[in-house]
């Protein structure tokens, strides 16, 4: 493959960057590698006001490569401050998801019956806080019927219908923004707050995405293709943010354009 070929991981990075582009001056809080790449790409292109961290306790003034340590520090966000920012609301988190259901609920807690789970995962972590306080997106590196299920086993992240049913205090700041996967971009604006197909990545068909989704996706009209990264974005991804091509480990290369 030559350098000019755009990979699936690069399409995902640009789609993730687009999730952060309208956020303005808030804390972009990506969990994991591709979300970090995408958020940093947004900071270098569409949203230079975005506030980013080293993934631990420091806010970075610059936009360093993935896993680089040294950068100018512009702020301090120990965990206690992260929780303050969640309730303050100026934060957009992109979390992982072991399961996502038709109504945009997410699960990272346990698979099976909660009292005696088949598989104990991390625990709900901050997902209940995030989803009723600040903008929340999800990143799913491997779109499958195991992840996209009719109903999640343990509601960790709260989707819009659950929030609405829980009352005004829950719905007020519930804002599930995007679900970006290795195949498509989704949101929760389908009928009755359901997951909707926003775009399919180049080389992927709507039928293919539906086939690996465990519920019927809402579709409105012709589903567009996810945009390709611009030349500027490709240069930034390849030479600045991820020169070691770590992105291909999370989303194995599928050539999407010549």
């Amino acid at each position, binding site marked *: 493959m030559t350098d000019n070929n755009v990979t699936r991981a690069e399409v995902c990075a640009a789609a993730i960057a687009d999730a952060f582009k309208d956020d303005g001056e808030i804390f972009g809080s990506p969990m994991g590698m591709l979300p970090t790449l995408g958020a940093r790409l947004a900071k270098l292109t569409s949203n230079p006001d975005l506030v980013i961290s080293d993934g631990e306790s420091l806010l970075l003034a610059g936009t360093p490569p993935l896993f680089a340590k040294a950068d100018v520090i512009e702020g301090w966000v120990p*965990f*206690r401050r992260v929780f303050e920012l969640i*309730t303050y609301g100026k934060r957009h988190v992109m979390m992982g998801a072991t399961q996502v259901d038709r109504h945009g609920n997410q699960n990272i807690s346990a698979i099976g019956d909660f009292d*005696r789970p088949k598989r*104990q995962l*991390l625990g709900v972590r901050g997902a209940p*806080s995030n989803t*009723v306080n600040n903008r929340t997106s999800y990143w799913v590196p491997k779109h499958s019927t195991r992840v996209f299920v009719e109903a999640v086993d343990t*509601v*960790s992240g709260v989707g819009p219908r659950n929030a609405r049913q829980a009352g005004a205090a829950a719905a007020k700041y519930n804002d599930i923004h995007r679900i970006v996967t290795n195949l498509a971009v989704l949101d929760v604006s389908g009928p009755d707050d359901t997951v909707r197909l926003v775009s399919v990545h180049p080389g992927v068909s709507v039928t293919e995405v539906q086939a690996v989704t465990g519920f019927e996706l809402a579709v409105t009209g012709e589903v567009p293709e996810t945009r390709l990264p611009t030349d500027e974005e490709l240069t930034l991804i390849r030479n600045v943010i991820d020169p070691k091509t770590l992105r291909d480990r999370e989303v194995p290369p599928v050539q999407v354009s010549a």
Partner: protein
Amino acid sequence: MSNKPRDKRMTIDEIVGTLEDGMTVGIGGWGPRRKPMALVRAILRSDLQDLTIVAWGGADIGLLVRAGKVRRLIYAFVSMDSVPLEPNFSRARQEGTVAEITEIDEGMFQTGLLAASQRLPFLPMRAGLGSDVLVNNPEIKTVTSPYDDGEELVAVPAINLDVALVHMNRADMHGNATYLGPDPYFDDLFCMAAERAYVSCEQIIDTAGLTGGPENTPVQRLLLNRMMVSGVVETPNGAHFTTCTPDYERDEKFQKAYATAAKDETAWAEFEARFLSGDEADYQAAVQAFHNEESVEENR
């Protein structure tokens, strides 16, 4: 008579000797970061049982549940970062060996400790609404705002601790203590939510050395004041195998060995015999020997 505040130095075993069966014990640090592991190991060696453990969980929870010390767990997650799922914790959950599970949101966890530190029965917040945290923990109630908004919020119950155990970088003999790494975590909150708090630290130094000094430590790093602390113990490498930045980082090799051993009965028995059968000095010596062997392997 001395005109100084009292000397609160204790040994690890004296501290753990003050704990009783059935107590609620908060463990400071975060996941695999700056955990009071020497004190956790001392609990493993003790006869204590039926404990309620409250923690941003890592291998502390894994070790204690594997050793059968825990009746109830209160946590929001259990993880070792580079090993995302804690195998001993997963096993305990999947085999149902912990009688009572209280898995709550991280924000709720902080708020519960805050309520305890403020001697309040609860504090309101949004977190939990709409999620299964309220389904799986029906004892957690909601409260309606008495103001015009009338919002129904979660009344996060206070997490009152009998004892808090935390690990700091430096302390004095009176219990004043500093963290030198990037994050204070919630160690002050744990201490203030507890009836008694015990601090282990890398080094006990003169009070004057806690600020300024060769490390030019700013005053903001004095997280714990002696009024929050009942006892203090010097335990060099006492957070091992978690981070204790800048004194040392996480022992990834050892963590990997721990996680691998936890998945197999025979390997776990060997791990326990090798590392957890003696006292803290034996543990530290065994860790040293483990690394010596590893480096011999690497140089072969």
